[in-house]
């Protein structure tokens, strides 16, 4: 990809932010931008794996939302298990419990991803219709399973005490948790980019997204690599779900299916197979959702679909379509 192809999508994110700035009072803009960044980064965690598994193996996984749900419940369970750490007024203990919750989410969703790839996904390579049927079915089964385990009602997910409340910056209230979520998402993005850019495995993954066959003809097996990416992607989606539920302070079994349309919008906007594209797509969706929700609440639901349509008119393969087969 030429550097110039990357510049315009970055400018687009800035343009959207500037439009928001022009359309509303400064303090609202600051608050909403922070909310948009946090939402975008959480979405990015959820979709990073989804876009790579499509890029590597052409696998459409509509069950990806299940990893989000289970990650969220894992976090809720950890918080419920250690209420004294959650309520503690020492920030180290707050961060510790947050890290534990994220770890539990990653482990549970990663393990589920491992099993799902082995048992189900491996059987439907190259058959998109069967992938859609199988993974859509799996999402329904996963949702029912979550209801069996955690019950049909929303369960509360209590934020650690030190992460409640807001910073007051330039007269705008910015929730502390959003800052933490945005920074964490950014950290994961930079980590992923570093791995993809500088490690041998990362280079093979990028090459595989462009031309799987040639990578195999060079002597590398894509299948185990794909399985690894699938598990890592599931684990990240779990962490994303945990952070989302912590922000919302509640989780239900339908969380994953509720978010499925949104995460596919992000992946499509970003360009299938592109981690950088997903990152920008997630930022756009986060910002647009928050701005439009403030300016024209009735359009909030529609705005992301319009955003996707506009971007596809501009770049039919998404912001940063990876490779070309």
């Amino acid at each position, binding site marked *: *990809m*030429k550097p110039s192809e990357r510049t315009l999508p970055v400018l687009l994110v800035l343009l959207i932010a500037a439009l928001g700035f022009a359309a509303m009072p400064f303090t609202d803009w600051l608050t909403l931008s922070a909310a948009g960044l946090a939402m975008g980064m959480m979405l990015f965690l959820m979709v990073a794996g989804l876009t790579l598994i499509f890029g590597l193996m052409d696998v459409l996984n509509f069950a990806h939302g299940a990893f989000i749900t289970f990650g969220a419940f894992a976090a809720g369970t950890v918080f419920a298990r250690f209420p004294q750490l959650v309520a503690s007024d020492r920030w180290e203990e707050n961060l510790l419990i947050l890290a534990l919750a994220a770890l539990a989410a990653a482990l549970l969703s990663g393990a589920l991803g491992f099993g799902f790839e082995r048992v189900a996904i491996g059987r439907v390579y190259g058959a998109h219709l069967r992938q859609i049927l199988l993974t859509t079915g799996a999402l329904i089964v996963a949702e029912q399973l979550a209801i069996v385990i955690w019950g049909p009602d929303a369960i509360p997910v209590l934020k650690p005490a030190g992460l409640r409340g807001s910073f007051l910056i330039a007269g705008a209230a910015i929730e502390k948790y959003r800052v933490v979520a945005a920074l964490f998402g950014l950290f994961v993005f930079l980590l992923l980019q570093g791995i993809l850019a500088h490690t*041998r495995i990362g*280079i*093979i993954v*990028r*090459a595989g997204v*462009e*031309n799987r*066959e*040639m*990578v*195999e*003809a*060079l*002597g*590398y*097996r894509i299948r185990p690599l794909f399985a690894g990416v699938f598990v890592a992607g599931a684990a990240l989606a779990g962490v994303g779900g945990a952070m989302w539920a912590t922000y919302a302070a509640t989780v239900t079994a339908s969380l994953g299916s509720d978010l499925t349309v949104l995460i596919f919008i992000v992946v499509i906007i970003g360009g299938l197979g592109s981690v950088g594209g997903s990152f920008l797509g997630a930022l756009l969706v986060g910002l647009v959702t928050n701005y439009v929700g403030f300016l024209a609440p009735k359009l909030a639901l529609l705005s992301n679909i319009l955003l996707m349509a506009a971007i596809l008119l501009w770049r039919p393969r998404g912001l940063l379509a*990876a*490779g*070309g087969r």
Partner: protein
Amino acid sequence: MTEQPLLVLKGVHTHIGRYHILQGVDLEVYAQRVSVLLGRNGAGKTTTLRTILGLWHASAGEISFDQHRLNTLDPPAIARLGIAYVPENMGIFSGLSVRENLLLGTGPKGFRNSRLEEVLASFPLLREKWNLPAGTLSGGQKQILAIARAMMLPRRLFVVDEPTKGLAPAMVDVLLDAFLRLKEGGATILLVEQNFAMAATLGDDAAVMEDGRIVHVSSMAALAQDEALQTRLLGLSLASHQ
């Protein structure tokens, strides 16, 4: 020739979807020689190479390489036996830098300095473009990169599909030089080449395909001298190309 061929195809059939493309291909490639596979468009040359690499599955017949039966192996396993493939479309990863493309041609330990220096000395333009995305290279530069990538490890067999397709004459000369050097170094090459002059300069052995079968086998020299045969098999002759 008394020695054993390195690569042997015996009665190889390949189906692509419901099409029966290769219909019993018999081919022998000898070590340290350049075997040229010729034939009109659509004769099945690319399909033959892809079947050797395991990228298409042979539905019948045997492909043996040294002691190994290739038709039971998958592409990574075949590549690891020391077979390098330079496909018709070059297989360059355009989003990866020149360096990263070359790196994928190395073993798990990455670049070996002596080898890298050798290859970069042969193709100095790669050093200039070292950190640029390979997508920014011209067609001929990509072809050079693809061949350089194949040379990053010692290989027992190079399988190369139409390297000069669509290239400017100056680029063809660069490639011809590269292949001649490779040949002098004792490499074994199976080459599909439509440029008959290039084929005639490089080739030791010739095989001609038609409709999914090998219909002629001889030395390249014999084929290059027999214009009537060229016209009959290929619809062209060396003379008509000059």
